[in-house]
């Protein structure tokens, strides 16, 4: 069948040009806001607009419908200018019920637009949302005077539109979100084409459902077009993004395919040993889909078995990987030490979340850096690589894998819930654009005039990788201190000191194999440097760009390599009078910078399970900038 959806408006309304808009879709877990948001996002993307999105799920699996705990939100920031964050405050919020309004009103800009489903504001809903007995309806009682409120009985309109669809009430209600989407498409002058195509693919086999969805979508659009309540529409032109082919990608997706890419480029099988944990589980889910590419995923009995199985796989010649979050990282500590003294490749991915202990599983934080750096007994340095944005998860983990394989060392990769779940457009590379990863298994004795030396190092301090099954190179490795070169157990004092030194040097020498740190935004010499790492990238970048416009003499540099630091970091820091380090923790990078460079860097700390707003960073920069001391 064929439905003609036409997206050209029948009436003249004021069209506002604007360069970026933040829309928040907010409703009950059951209301399909995630899907709605993604359709809207993909359409914006196709129109060449830059975007950044962030989904927010309820902490409870599925809290009672209509309650505040049950609100599920999807946020999209799109525009004709470059977009670096999902946005701090909303221009438009769609609230399907009163709980959603309660949750999201605080982050709606004054004067912002509220599109409210009146059906979600009856007394029952108000009660569920925790409004006191007999409370007045916020849509009516003036609470929202400072906003532009569009009250629509979305439920009713959808039902009317679909009364002849032959569907049951439940299915009809499920089309609410398409009605909303239609309204927004009209409002932002977006074509429905893409969504129509998607619905056709998705429901091809269920024509009645398909029709219902298309009808709801269309009715929404028409509703916007016909009813007089909407006075303005918005037009956002395409962004000046670098030309190329783009896709939308979330951090955890990027992480997963980054690992696949690294393994393929290295010519190795990929093995993931993991135990589910929020917000890392999606990487396990994602990788387990790639069986056809030979990816082996092993859901272990716990995090210890997960990392141990990955160590075994690396030993056997695979790229061994383990993924987890804080509590799991804690459990992997001992085994990391083993991989370190074995000197086998291993990528340990920590998708950070709010701690300590179980903490805030669904919230974001950057508080595992010092554990990654020092959380092992004995002298046990490991390289650390951190991702800055959703798309950067791909490149950063690819780097982590490259370093691990080329230097025979376990590498810790840090991401966090914010970028893991957030998404952005990605000008993805092609296979041949990826840095080569050189792995060579040793197949002959490296000591012609004697026995094979499994711990004989090359100039970079790297030992050879030998696959069991290789004739003539049989050898034993273990967690006891090793004699230099032979790898035999040694209790010799000087040898121990030597091995501690050699293992540390090997990590230090990785600095020769990573790029220098460059100022990303602003001048190479300035009054204040904002030094960031990880997911604070978007907020810092936006803040710095805005302040540069305002004439501030500042700059932004962002660290991907946290151990070892890029060789030029010390030097670079000295080009600035002041250094500000914003982190979603109590000052962990700050601590490392102070200890290493003895400079009085300033910290900006936020430990709220939420990313920085641009404002928060701007304010702190200004304060520091103008502080005479």
């Amino acid at each position, binding site marked *: 069948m064929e439905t003609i959806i036409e997206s050209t408006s029948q009436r003249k309304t004021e069209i506002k040009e604007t360069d970026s808009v933040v829309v928040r879709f907010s409703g009950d877990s059951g209301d399909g806001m995630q899907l709605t948001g993604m359709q809207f996002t*993909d359409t914006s993307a*196709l129109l*060449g607009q830059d975007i950044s999105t962030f989904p927010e799920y309820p902490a409870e699996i599925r809290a009672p419908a209509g309650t505040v705990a049950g609100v599920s939100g999807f946020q999209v920031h799109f525009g004709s200018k470059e977009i670096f964050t999902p946005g701090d405050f909303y221009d438009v919020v769609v609230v399907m019920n009163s709980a959603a309004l309660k949750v999201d009103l605080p982050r709606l800009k004054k004067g912002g637009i509220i599109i409210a489903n009146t059906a979600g504001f009856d007394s029952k809903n108000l009660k569920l949302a925790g409004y006191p007995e007999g409370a007045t309806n916020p849509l009516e009682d003036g609470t929202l005077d400072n906003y532009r409120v569009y009250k629509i009985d979305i439920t009713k309109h959808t039902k009317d539109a679909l009364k002849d669809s032959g569907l049951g009430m439940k299915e009809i209600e499920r089309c609410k979100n398409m009605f909303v989407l239609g309204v927004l498409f009209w409002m932002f002058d977006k074509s429905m084409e893409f969504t129509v195509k998607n619905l056709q693919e998705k429901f091809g086999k269920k024509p009645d459902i398909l029709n219902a969805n298309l009808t709801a979508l269309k009715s929404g659009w028409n509703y916007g077009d016909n009813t007089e309540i909407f006075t303005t529409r918005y037009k956002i032109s*395409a962004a000046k993004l*670098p*030309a*190329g*082919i783009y*896709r*939308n990608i979330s951090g955890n997706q990027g992480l997963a*395919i980054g690992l*696949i*890419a690294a393994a393929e480029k290295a010519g190795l*099988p990929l*093995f993931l040993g993991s135990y589910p944990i929020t917000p890392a589980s999606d990487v396990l889910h994602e990788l387990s889909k790639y*069986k*056809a*590419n*030979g990816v*082996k995923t*092993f859901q*272990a*009995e*716990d995090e*210890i*078995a997960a990392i*141990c199985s*990955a*160590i*075994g*796989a*690396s*030993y*056997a*010649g*695979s790229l*061994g990987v383990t993924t987890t979050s804080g509590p799991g990282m804690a459990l992997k500590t001992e*085994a990391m030490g*083993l991989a370190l003294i*074995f000197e086998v490749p291993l990528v340990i991915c920590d998708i950070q979340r709010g701690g300590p202990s179980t903490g805030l599983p669904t919230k974001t934080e950057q508080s595992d850096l010092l554990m990654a750096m020092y959380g092992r007994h004995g002298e046990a340095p490991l390289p650390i690589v951190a991702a800055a944005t959703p798309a950067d998860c791909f490149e950063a983990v690819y780097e982590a894998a490259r370093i691990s394989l080329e230097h025979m060392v376990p590498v810790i990769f840090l991401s966090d819930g914010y970028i893991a779940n957030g998404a952005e457009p990605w000008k*993805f590379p*092609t*296979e041949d654009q990826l840095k080569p990863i050189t792995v060579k298994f040793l*197949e002959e004795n490296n000591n012609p005039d004697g*026995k094979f030396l499994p711990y004989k190092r090359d100039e970079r301090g790297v030992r050879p990788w030998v*696959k*069991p*099954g*290789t*004739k*003539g190179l*049989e*050898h*034993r*490795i*273990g*967690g*006891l201190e090793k004699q230099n070169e032979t790898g*035999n*157990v040694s209790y010799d004092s000087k040898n121990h000191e030597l091995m501690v030194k050699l293992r540390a040097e090997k990590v230090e020498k990785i600095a020769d194999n990573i790029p220098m740190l460059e100022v990303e935004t602003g001048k190479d010499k300035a009054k204040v440097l904002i030094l960031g790492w990880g997911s604070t990238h978007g907020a810092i970048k936006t803040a710095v760009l805005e302040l540069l416009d305002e004439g501030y003499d500042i700059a932004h540099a962002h660290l991907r390599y946290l151990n070892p630091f890029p060789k030029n970091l010390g030097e670079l820091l000295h080009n600035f009078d002041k250094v500000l380090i914003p982190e979603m923790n109590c000052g962990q990078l700050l601590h490392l910078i102070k200890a290493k460079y003895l400079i009085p860097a300033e910290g900006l700390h936020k430990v709220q399970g939420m990313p920085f707003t641009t404002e928060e960073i701007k304010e702190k920069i200004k304060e520091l900038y103008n502080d005479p001391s």
Partner: protein
Amino acid sequence: METVTENTAPVKLTAKDFTSDQEVKWCPGCGDYSILKQVQTVLPDFGGALENYVFVSGIGCSSRFPYYMATYGMHSIHGRAPAIASGVKIANPDLNVWVVGGDGDLLSIGGNHFIHFMRRNPNIKIMMFNNEIYGLTKGQYSPTSSKGIVTKSTPYGSVDEPFNPAELALGAKSSFFARTMDRDPKHMQAMVKRANEHHGTAFVEVYQNCPVFNDEVFGIFTEKTTKKDETIFIEHGKPLVFGQTENKGIKLDGFKPVVVELGEGVSKEDLWIHDENDKTKAFILAQFADFSTPEHHFPRPFGLFYREDRPCIEEDIVHQIESVKAKKGKTPLNKILSGDKTWTIV
């Protein structure tokens, strides 16, 4: 793309080929010496190439084992050998992977990996040197030490009910359980052979004497004078006979095993015939170690209690990969990078 050489070594290897150049550092008289010797003795008969063997251990005196084998090997961390070995085997199913550990290593700190290992049934052989003590840490009781034992950490006697390793393994769906002892080389060799032949996880418990911290704890089973009365060597299809002069046997009355004197109206035909495929009977055999009714004192069974053929996880993983490959075909990396939904900006 495995570089594993054919599973048939050109010339037959010898025990010496399996002996590393490392000085063996167990105490004089330690039962581990015998176990090492028997393993090195029978391995050549299995025909596998030296380079395809990987011995993985945890920490403990027993876990020093891999250092003394001239194969590939890992002396890992306490209790984790089964998890590491699983990774090795899944990554490369062609390798011939063996796990070695102590009663503390495998059943105390390593207990969780141990039971999950049993249910997943990778084709790995696992030998537990049970000396009912923590040897390397100088003599604390272990989860197999009998209740009341006085050790460094229990000066007034332990209050822990021990595990029954056979029962625990079977309860965790072990597909192969055998028990042997350090002081019966022939029998040990036979059990190691049976383990090697088993397709799946083969668990061999070896009673091992620790002369320093738990001397002669298995003495009654190993000493000439008492061995015949205190042990019973079980074989598939054979009646359960034991005693100085093969004068005793085990009969089943209903579900209750009873010790009977042969002769006086009881003949071998009346005895329990061992069936190594009967799990329920295996559980009863396992419990011999625990019951001793006032009337009956039960001998300790040695031999293969139970074996069962079921799929190995590493093979299922490979089959799954192959079937999916066959169905969908490998996705080119470029396709993975681009995903399904892309748009172009000009």
